[in-house]
Structure formats: structure tokens, C-alpha cells
């Protein structure tokens, strides 16, 4: 019974958090900002206009971040584009912070690989499905462990 309710709750919660966030950043969608998609779950390497490989060193990442910051930081953009450039810069910063932190970079790359494997057309959907599946698996293994503990407990009695 709990196997089915748990992932749903988790799923709703995720969506809720995202929905909430989307509602409070009052930023018009950047429909025509060009080739790079600045979606919520964009590829951090693409965000920093970097080659997609582990060979990219911290120095390159830093340099790319600085170069793009000079273009997209709200301080260098006109007031009318401030809200938008703020979004771009936040994304840029998230990418930079993730890729310059060795531990977070490894985790991110693992996540990226898994997402790539899930070859769904809709990225958003794929991730949610993947997360939901993961939750199911986690819950199942948790249950199995509990059952096992129960059994061993009985034996001890």
C-alpha cells in the first residue's frame, strides 16, 4: 500500500516546489533569446558554452563564467532587461557553482548521464518519471529491509 502512495506524494511535492518557484519569480518567458535554451533544467556545460567533457578544467570554467558574466550580469544590462538578465545570471551562477565544486560536479555528471539515457522526448517528463521510479525503488528496498529486520527479530524471539 505504501509503495504506491509514497512516490506520488514525493512527486506532488516536487511539482509543488517548482510551481511555487515559478509563480514567484515574475519574469517573462525568454522566448526569443536565441539558440541556448535557458530552461529550468538546462545543461550546465551549454549554459557556460563549454565543450561537453570531463577534460574541461576549473580554469576554463572560471574563464567562461567571467566572460558570460560580463555579458549577462544585470549590472551591465539595461534596466528594462534586468529581470531577464537576473534569470540568466542566476542560471549561469548555478552552473558555475556546480561545475567548480568537484563533488557536486561528479554528482551532476552522473545525473546528466542518467537523464541522457532516459530517451524520452520530453525532458521534463523524463526526469519526473525517473524520479518517481527511483522513489518506488527506494521505498521497495526500504520495505524489504524492514521485512528482513522483522524476520530476524522473530527468529531472535
Amino acid at each position, binding site marked *: 500500500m505504501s509503495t504506491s502512495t509514497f512516490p506520488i506524494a514525493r512527486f*506532488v*511535492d516536487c511539482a*509543488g516546489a517548482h510551481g511555487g518557484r515559478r509563480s514567484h*519569480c515574475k519574469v517573462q518567458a525568454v522566448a*526569443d533569446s536565441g539558440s541556448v535554451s535557458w530552461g529550468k533544467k538546462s545543461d550546465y556545460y551549454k549554459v557556460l558554452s563549454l565543450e561537453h567533457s570531463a577534460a574541461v578544467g576549473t580554469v576554463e570554467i*572560471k574563464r567562461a563564467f567571467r566572460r558570460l558574466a560580463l555579458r549577462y550580469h544585470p*549590472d551591465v544590462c539595461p534596466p*528594462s532587461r*534586468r529581470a531577464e538578465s*537576473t534569470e540568466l545570471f542566476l542560471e549561469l551562477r548555478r552552473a558555475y557553482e556546480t561545475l567548480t565544486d568537484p563533488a557536486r560536479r561528479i554528482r551532476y555528471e552522473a545525473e546528466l548521464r542518467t537523464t541522457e539515457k532516459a530517451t524520452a522526448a520530453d525532458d521534463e517528463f523524463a526526469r519526473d518519471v525517473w524520479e518517481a521510479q527511483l522513489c518506488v525503488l527506494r521505498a521497495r528496498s526500504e520495505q524489504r529491509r524492514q521485512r528482513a529486520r522483522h524476520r530476524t527479530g522473530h527468529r531472535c524471539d
Partner: protein
Amino acid sequence: MGLVFVRCEAVVQRRGLPGRRAVSADLFRRGGRFILQPRLNSSVLGGDSWLSIVVKRGKTSRWCSDADIAIRSTTSKGKRMAEQFYTVASDSETTGEDKSQLSFPDVAIGIDIGTSKCSVAIWNGHQVELLKNTRNQKGMRSYVMFKDDTLSAGVTGGAAQESAHEERDILSGSAIFNMKRLIGRMDTDEVVQASKTLPFLVQTLGIGVRPFIAALVNNMWRSTTPEEVLAIFLLELKALVEMHLKHPVRNAVLTIPVAFSRFQQTRIERAFAMAGLHVLRLMPEPTAVALLYAQQQQQLMHDNMGSGIEKIALIFNMGAGYSDAAVAATAGGVSQIRALSGCTVGGEDILQNIMRHVLPNFDSLYDGHTVDRIKSMGLLRIATQDAIHKLANQESVDINIDLGNGQKVSKVLDHSEFEQVNRAIFEKCEKIIIQCLVDAKLEPEDINDVILVGGCSKIPRIRSLVLGLCKKEVSYKNIDALEAAVSGAAMEGAIASGVTDPSGSLDLLTIQATPMNLGIRADGNNFAAIIPRNTTVPARRDMLFTTTHDNQTEALIAVYEGEGEQAEDNHLLGYFKIAGIPPAPKGSVEISVCMDIDASNVLRVFAGVVKPQGPAIPPFIEVRMPTLDDGHGWCGQALAKMYGKTIDLAVLPKKLQP
């Protein structure tokens, strides 16, 4: 909406390339936006950025300072220029200030208001220029003199011609100074308490309201406020700049101490507004210095054709009222603030410590603020200040003064005694530097340059302390300790106003960080930091909270700023209530609190219920902080008294943040 068609001139530049050129273009309005279209014969490329647009109509011309960056270049490379459109700032979207017709480039000036001295600088088209007053001073004493019906600020030096005479006048009780330490502080604040020994009247009731401040005019205490004093001072400063520039000044970039709370920042902005100045940007003092450093490094790189590797500087600034430390990483003209920390110790504290040391019954002497006591205190203050200045260059110093009423002070002060007396101050300085290094995750060996600025950086012990902590022999030399901050501010003013320099010396950017934790009260009296200090600005972070009681329908969001672990140790910025939470067992409701600092450094807090969901859930609440005005010391207590723990929140045990 109809189309308004105007022929205009625009100045464009390719980023990274020197030289700017004027091109003719058509400006028209479509759907509330201004669209700029370059004329066919003008050579505008896709990567060009607009620096400024001058729209000429008859004799008047309008200058749009911030029109920048080619925004909607939908064409691919080979297509004709005519298809390129650029959206520029429209009337309604710019700052919202009155758009007076400006016929001159409104470049923001840089102002550094020190506790003791103040300076102002402008970008003169080629470089930063510090302005001097009529007495040829770059650093002007920050004070306002109240005499009969006339007020005079330290910009011109008032009536006094000689500086010794001026100093005695300032200390006569008729002048208000140190307003930077008093502004936006409550009467329970220890800085305010320490200010009670100043010659003018600082009265406290100790209940968390603004202190009563008054100047002695015709043997009567005339009340005023730090904001008013600052505004009067700024008016004189503004007049000085306008006299020099020969046109009105509207915008300013101001440097502030790192330790300034957001509440204090709003107070400073209010004082500026009272003086008719718009604060375009507030820069923590060491970050202004970092900008200057970034420019110098950029220049060096151009000269030597260097590789432009990242350089890391530790900046320590100690003035009369505040100490700040910052770690900045600089490369390619971008200065990234890695860590900031600050505290409210400065030369004023050193001065008071020494005064107490040479005159043990110092505090009792200052009770009552009678005229002759103020006078003798003034004498002591001048003599002590003099001694401290002399100690910077000599081994020991004699203090010999007659305070009147048979009181005499005679003492020899040497370095070891001076250091002993001020040990607590040096320890605090040490603490903020170490914190800065830890926060930036750096070892002393990683620091390339140590930059010492501010008046107190001349004190030998401060120099040895900072250099010792960073394991350096010498400090960075190309920066003037007293002019660095204001120069950086003027540079930022020029950049923020959209000025560019052909030589590329203004192709700079400071990526700022938050100096203090921002969060809310949760888990009883604890402080849950949502945006931790040293987060890059603009920033947005959220955190989930839950209810602490069964069927709790309301929750209080009390927003604090500071370094303390307990909510009460921090500055209360504001509070609001989330009502209409659906009844549920405690811990099952999820309340999301999101904090957002936008590009203009405005803090907004969004909060609402995210679980359960449904049509019965009230909408999110958005609050711009700080909401509190005066008397914020009271509010926290009043809230606790009124509600107790009934509408408390708890941090939701964390799942992984997506």
C-alpha cells in the same frame, strides 16, 4: 499602440574592442516598448552593444543611459541589417524616477562618507578625479555645525578657517558627527551606548527605539536625527560637485561598511533622498577597492600582454567607525567577491580606549554634558587623537594636557601599552580576516596581494597583524589608503551610468556577495539562514518549513539578518503572517519561504503553503524587506509577548533540494 517615429543618434561599441561610434537610427514605439532600428547605411553588427541613445527633438535631447546590449537580434549572420531590431529602455521600465529632460550625461558620482572624513569623486571622461573643497582638502570632515539659525557642514569647513580651531569647534557640542555610526541604530545598540561620551547629546532609554540626538545651540539642546545631519552634509557636498561639474547631479554610488544592516541601508538612502540624490548603488567599501584593483590588474595585463590569470586579493579596510575585510578574485576585469565580513570597531574605539586609559575617571567626568565638561573632554580628545597619530611613526608619545578645574593629564604612551589597551579591537580585526579566509575556502598562501586601506591602516599593529595572517611581507602598493574606496565608487558610478572608455578601462564588473546571513526565525528561537552570507548577488534561495502545532492555521515569518545563531541576536527586518493554513497534524504541512535579492539589491520574501495543495490554499505572499521602520527593537518582544509559540515554524527535515 501607435508608432512614434523619431530619428535619433546612438552610440555603439563592440564589447572588447576600443572605440565607440555614433550611428543614426530610427526609434519607434511598439506595444509600450521602444524599438531601435539602425538605418540602412549604419554599420551595426550583431554583437554591438548600445551605449547610449540621444534622441534629438528640436533643441532638447534625451539621453538614455542604460540602453545597452543588442537584445533582439533575430537575424542570422548573412541577413541584412535592416532586419535587426533593438529594444531599448522604455519610459515605464526605467528606474521609475522622474525622467527630466537631460541635456548632459548624468554620470553617477562616487561618495565615500566616512565616520570621520568624507570624500567625493567623479569620472571626468578619462579617469577618476577626487574633488577638493575650497580649502583644498580631498578628505572633508564629516560633521554638521548647528549655530543659531545657520547650519554648516564639514564640506566647506564652516566659519572656522584654521583646522585646529575647526577641531575645537566640532567638539564644542554644537556639531554632530559620527552619524555613520548612529544612523539606523537603536538605543540598545552598544555602538549608540558608546557614543554617549561624544560632545553632543546622545540620550538613550534602552528600549529599542531610535536614540535622542541633539546639538548645543545657544546653550540649548536642539534635537535632530542622523538622517537629517547626513542630508544637510550631502546637500553641501552636492553643491560642491555641481559647482565643479557645472550641471546638476542626481545619481550617486555610495560606499558603505560591510557591517551595515539592510535597515541602515534604507536609512542612508532616505538621507540621500532628502538631499535630492538617488542612490544608484550601494557598495561595501572593500568591494569598491576590489574594483579599483581589478582595473589596475586589467591595465597591467594589457601593458604586459599577460595571460590574465586569476589574482586573489585580501582587502582590509579600517576607518574611524567600521572595519571590513573582503576576499576578491580578479581576472579579465571581473572582480568576484568571494567573502565579506565586517564589524563595528574602528579608530573611534581606539580613541575612546586611550582616553579611558589616560583618564581613569573618564566616564564619570562626562555625565551631565555641562559646557565646561564638554570643553575639557574636547581638549582630551584632541590631545589623544594627536598622540595616536604620532604613535604611527614614533616609539612613544607624551600626553600632557590641562583639562581645567584642576585636572591634569600627564602620561607617556608607548607601543606596547597602546597595543595592550586596544587588544580587544585587534582581536576583532583578526577574527573578521580569519572568517573571510575560511569563508572563501582559502589558505594564506593563496592570497596574491594584501590591500590595506582606511585611516587606521596606518597603525603599525594593524599592518603587521593583517600581513602576518596572510603570511606576506609587504602590502599592495598601488592603492592610496584614503582614496581607494571613493575612486572605486566613482568608477562603479560611471559603469552603472553606461559610460565606456575607449581604452577599455571601464570594462569592469563586480560580482557582489551578501555580507550577512538572511533567514527567518524557526525551531523556537533559532535562526534559519535561507540565503547564507557570501552568496552571489543576485540570489534566490528557498527552504521548506512546517508547523509546530496540530491544526495550526497561522504561521509567523519573522525575517532576520545577521551572524547570530539565535534569531534575537540578529537584526529584525520585518515580519508577516501566513494565514489560512489547512488544519493538519503538526509537521505535515509544507511552507516554502523563498528569498530573492534582485539586481538592485532589493530583498523580497515569498512565502506560502506548498503542501497540501488545492484551491483552498491561500495565495503566496510577497513582501519587500525591510518593512520595519523605527522601534524595531520593540517589535520582536511585542510579537513574542502577543503570540508566544502559537504561530511558530520549524525547519522541515531536509530532503534533497532539486
